[in-house]
């Protein structure tokens, strides 16, 4: 059982958000973009802590459109989760029977699902924010009667317990006897009563021996017993000095983790190890908890939901990189926030969610494989769906049309035709147009797979970038960084990722990726056939020609080397080659020089980068396509 969809309205920085969640979902985005709000929304819908007087929901949790907005004005906060089977019959019978009163069945797919909505609005009569939880039917209307009984909510929560590990994981807290995992694990340990009695005897004996070891201990006890006399009770109490734990639980509760990094190093308590190890150990503590205690505390078919913030905290890049596979293997559903490009490097593209704050509140971009829109049912629609060969689905109860992959022209026109005479034709056509446009963002599994292979090196960082600058090769990669710096626009500082597309797949995929993730981008290609070909390959992906013209520049000359020579940089280029150890560079004729440059791309580029340092004039003489693009990158949206 896991959350497949999360819908949030009017919560903190979120105005309206629809988010698909996978087995593991990784949220990345700048600070204050709304990542924690998303995690909190999940925790709120799955727990009851919210809204209790003093501890829960406050006016600050209501999304405010502007500074004059009134948090008490309707409609208030709404958080909705849809928990759905991946395939019909996936959920065990026992679970389905137990949750019978709240489950819904998709009549076409046979899949079972549950929708729960938590909402919170100002209650004038009560004078506070009143939270409520209610299960919904397939049409997202509240279920009434027996389904609305509180018992069903408690029961549902038992099956989907949520756990939260914040970015600041304090080992002292997490391994305390009262902590959520460690404490409960210790309490669950079963000590045979025979052993317990024996322990008790040993403890008592030990205590006596210790007291006898120094007579002063006994005297101290005697002095302290004055306290009971002062308390003036009818009968004398007593004071004893206990030097060892009183009960076996006290002993157990003092249990602590000790570890050593190498076989012959000393054992040290966890608290004495580095922050990284401490932070990591808390995550593994969760795993131990789930494996040993979850079904005992919850139900046999319970599946945990883990809201995990920054698992990479304090970790070395190498460790952060391998962390993904450990986290992914954790039981249950994971929703993770991260700021680590190393961690992201191994996260599948479809699991990534880019969170950012816009004028419209928090927005999330991703690379979905399907796209949905709400449109009313008409009789003609059934035939179009039936004839789509499974690429389209329609959920009649929810009035939701889902397109898998791109919405091709023929079915798109057929859909439009269904509503040709509908009273709300204009509105519905608008919705379909929007669906069509969104489905253009589709990137196929094959392409994503090829990116997984080629672009692993850069994919960590590009998702954290604010803008992309797509160039052909590594020479360009090096040069544009240097140029931009000298031209007063440091690319790193401004969050611009330069993508040398040739080494990482092809430029068109990156353009499509950028569009899907709403990342502004520019590209500079060679003037030769290949360069023109890149522009065309981008156009083919449904980019309007004018857009391509504005975003993709090409050199006038065939390639960057020819362009630089044409730009009168021959002297500098010969020097750069020479510096790179190419002796022939000083004497080569024009044709031979070009040849040498093309054969020593990174060599001359690195030397040229050195020469550009502190030399804005030189940067200013570099190919115009680069300079113009760098100028455009400023403020590009």
């Amino acid at each position, binding site marked *: 059982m896991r959350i497949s969809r999360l819908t949030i309205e009017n919560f903190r920085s979120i105005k309206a958000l629809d988010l698909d969640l996978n087995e593991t979902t990784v949220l990345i985005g700048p600070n204050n973009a709304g990542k924690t709000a998303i995690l909190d929304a999940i925790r709120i819908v799955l727990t009851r802590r919210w809204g209790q007087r003093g501890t829960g929901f406050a006016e600050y949790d209501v999304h405010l459109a502007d500074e004059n907005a009134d948090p008490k004005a309707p409609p208030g906060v709404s958080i909705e989760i849809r928990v759905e089977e991946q395939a019909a019959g996936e959920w065990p019978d026992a679970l389905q029977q137990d949750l019978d009163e709240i489950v819904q*069945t998709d009549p076409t797919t046979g899949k079972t699902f549950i929708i729960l909505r938590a909402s919170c609005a100002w209650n004038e009569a009560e004078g506070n924010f009143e939270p409520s939880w209610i299960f919904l039917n*397939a049409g997202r*209307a509240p279920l009434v*009667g027996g389904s*609305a*009984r509180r018992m069903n909510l408690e029961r549902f929560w038992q099956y989907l317990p949520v756990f939260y590990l914040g970015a600041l994981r304090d080992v002292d807290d997490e391994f305390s006897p009262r902590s959520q995992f460690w404490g409960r694990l210790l309490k669950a340990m079963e000590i045979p009563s025979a052993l317990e009695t024996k322990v008790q005897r040993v403890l008592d004996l030990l205590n006596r021996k210790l007291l006898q070891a120094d007579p002063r201990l006994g005297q101290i006890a005697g002095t302290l017993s004055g306290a009971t006399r002062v308390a003036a009770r009818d009968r004398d109490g007593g004071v004893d000095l206990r030097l060892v734990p009183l009960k076996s639980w006290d002993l157990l509760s003092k249990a602590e983790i000790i570890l050593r990094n190498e076989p012959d190093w000393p054992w040290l308590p966890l608290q004495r190890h580095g922050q990284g190890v401490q932070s990591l150990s808390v995550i593994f503590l969760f795993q131990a908890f789930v494996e040993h205690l979850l079904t005992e505390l919850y139900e046999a078919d319970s599946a945990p939901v883990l809201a995990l913030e920054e698992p990479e905290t304090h970790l070395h890049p190498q460790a952060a990189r391998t962390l993904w596979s450990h986290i992914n293997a954790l039981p249950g559903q994971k929703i993770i926030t991260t700021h680590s490009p190393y961690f992201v490097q191994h996260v599948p593209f479809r699991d990534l969610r880019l969170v950012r704050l816009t004028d419209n509140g928090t927005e999330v971009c991703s690379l979905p494989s399907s796209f949905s829109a709400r449109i009313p049912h008409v009789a003609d629609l059934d035939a179009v769906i039936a004839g789509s060969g499974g690429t389209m689905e329609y959920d009649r109860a929810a009035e939701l049309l889902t397109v898998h992959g791109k919405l091709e022209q023929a079915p798109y026109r057929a859909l439009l035709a269904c509503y040709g005479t509908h009273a709300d034709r204009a509105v519905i056509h608008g919705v379909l147009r929007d669906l069509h446009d969104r489905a253009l963002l589709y990137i196929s599994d094959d392409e994503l797979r090829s990116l997984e292979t080629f672009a692993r090196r850069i994919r960590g960082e590009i998702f954290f970038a604010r803008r992309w600058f797509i160039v052909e090769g590594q020479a360009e990669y090096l040069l544009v960084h240097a140029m931009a710096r000298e031209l007063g626009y440091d690319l790193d500082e401004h969050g611009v990722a330069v993508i040398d597309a040739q080494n990482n797949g092809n430029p068109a995929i990156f353009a499509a990726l950028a569009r899907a993730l709403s990342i502004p981008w520019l590209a500079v290609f060679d003037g030769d056939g290949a360069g023109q070909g890149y522009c065309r390959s981008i156009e083919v992906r449904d980019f309007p020609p004018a857009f391509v013209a504005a975003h993709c520049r090409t050199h006038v000359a065939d390639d960057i080397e020819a362009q630089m020579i044409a730009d009168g940089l021959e002297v500098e280029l010969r020097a750069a080659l020479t510096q790179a150890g190419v002796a022939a560079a000083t004497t080569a004729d024009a044709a031979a020089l070009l040849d040498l440059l093309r054969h020593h791309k990174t060599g001359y580029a690195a030397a040229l980068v050195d020469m550009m340092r502190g030399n804005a004039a030189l940067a200013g003489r570099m190919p115009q396509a680069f300079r113009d693009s760098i100028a455009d990158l400023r403020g590009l949206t």
Partner: protein
Amino acid sequence: MIDNPLETALAKLTEIQRQAVGWGEGAMLALAGPGSGKTQVLTCRIARLLDEGRDQSFRVLALTFTNKAADEMKERVANFVPGLEERANIGTFHSFCGQVLRQHGIHLGIKPDFAIYSQDDDRKAVLEDALKRADMGADGMRYLGLIDRMKTLLIEPKDVVSRLTRAADAQAIAQAYEAYESELRRLNVLDFNSLIFEAFRLFSTFPAIAARYRRSYPYWLLDEFQDTNDGQYRLIRTMAGNDFKNVFAVADDDQIIYQWNGASFRQIQRFRADFQPELIQLPTNYRCPPAIVAAANRLVAYNVQRTETKKPLVAGKTDLKLPEQDHIQLRVFETDEIEAEEIAEEIAARGRDQWSQTTVLARTRASLEKMLKAFQAAQVPAVIAQRRDDFLSAEIRWMVACLVQTVRPLDRRNLAVLIDAFNRFADIQIAVGQVLSDAEASGSGYFSTWITAATGEIGASSPHARLLETAGRLDPASAKSVIDTMLTELDARASGDDPDPDLVEDLAAWREISSDIRRHFGSIISLDEFLQQLQLRSKAPSPQAHTVTLMTVHGAKGREFDFVYLIGLAEDILPSFQSRQKGDNSPEMEEERRNCFVAITRAKESLILSRANSYRGWTKQPSRFLVEMGLATPNS
């Protein structure tokens, strides 16, 4: 040793009962005669299944025909397996279908918060509006009965014309039906017949939803299966699909007395054909003295339409309070007037302590009215027991309407009921249309607009001001305390010098129903759920102490009394004139015989049969059933 109610009950079962209770997988048809302890078998079976599946989550479904039967079963199951009763879904066919439709009806376009119209007035209003909306003449009103019939038979509006080949106005009927259905849908309302029909439609259109009920409820029990009509049977059949067989049906083919409602021996035959159930018989009668059992056996042997291998009843009652000659008696009177008077006198003479355990049964309501008059003359408190769809007093009708309005603030039909009821007892004239337009103009809710209007109308010194002010505080969360305040106010009115008897009765009924509902659904039941339950239940209170109950034979189904008087055992009365018209071997005549069978087997100690030589001035022969029972010799 801790007293375990389930174990105690199981230990008391007879061998054959235990076999039924212990039945595992597969279909079973238990033929259970009257007084054979079938409720005990059903409840023990439910409890046993739950008890043995303590560590599992499956639920058990049990369907009955009356809320009373469902309530009793729930109570027993809760007593047997405390804490597990929540996994037993025990209810009437209608309430179960209501649940199904609230949870899954959206696939047919039915919203979860639909209202249920059970009263004819409501349904007439719906048809009236529907006809207007469809620009059809008001003469379509006469089709309401036909529409009901179509819905009971699960016939869709589009199939009406092909099904009613002999009706000249089939087209018009179909249109009226269609309009009625779409008006119901528009109002977000279902009537009683819709509940079964729509649930059937849901399961047959979307087998995945039927499958979900089979998964959650691996065991089904059907009480009084012989009363199942065609629609109810097809509902069960569709819900079961082709492979599900775990249906445990308890039936008595000798107690089919709802033929007019579609109950038929055919349903039992279909069940046997479709589910291939194992047949088990519970012939032992623990209720009636042996003489009655013998008479019942003799009587029913004249019927053909019954299970061939059916065993005769066996007398199993051991503690008999009365001497043998008192077990069956026959009284003969000259006229029906004298019959009523003498029976009333006889019962009066029994003394008040026996009145509540005495019932007078008759074939028709008219005969009961005559009895009621006779009892009044004899100064014996008596009441005709019957289902009551609505409360009698304007006050309680108004209170219920207020509650409904808080749950469905936009329900105009209910608003009309609310305003009308209050107008009546407060003696004011507030027009529904005025409240509606005021509400729309001011943008406030219907209910609060009406409160304001009514408060202004009655004036501050009115005796109804307190009631109105209390109603103004209504919201779903505060309903319980507001109702309590209202009831206190109404109690005061009902305890005055000249109380309105309707209000007195309604208050008693309200207390009874609400405590029943709370007992079976918990005290934290939501207002909405409470109102749904209220809607489904009869609004008649139980008879007071020392009151004789008068019932039609149909109403007596499932009941038992120490002293049973069955009057009118004459040809044309029981059996009825209509059944005699159909012929001596007609199914109708067989049903009359079953009516007689059901009636006499209600008696725990004594059965007094009576007849008169003339009814309404016409000479009538003794009932053939008297002859068949061996209590009279054939008249020459």
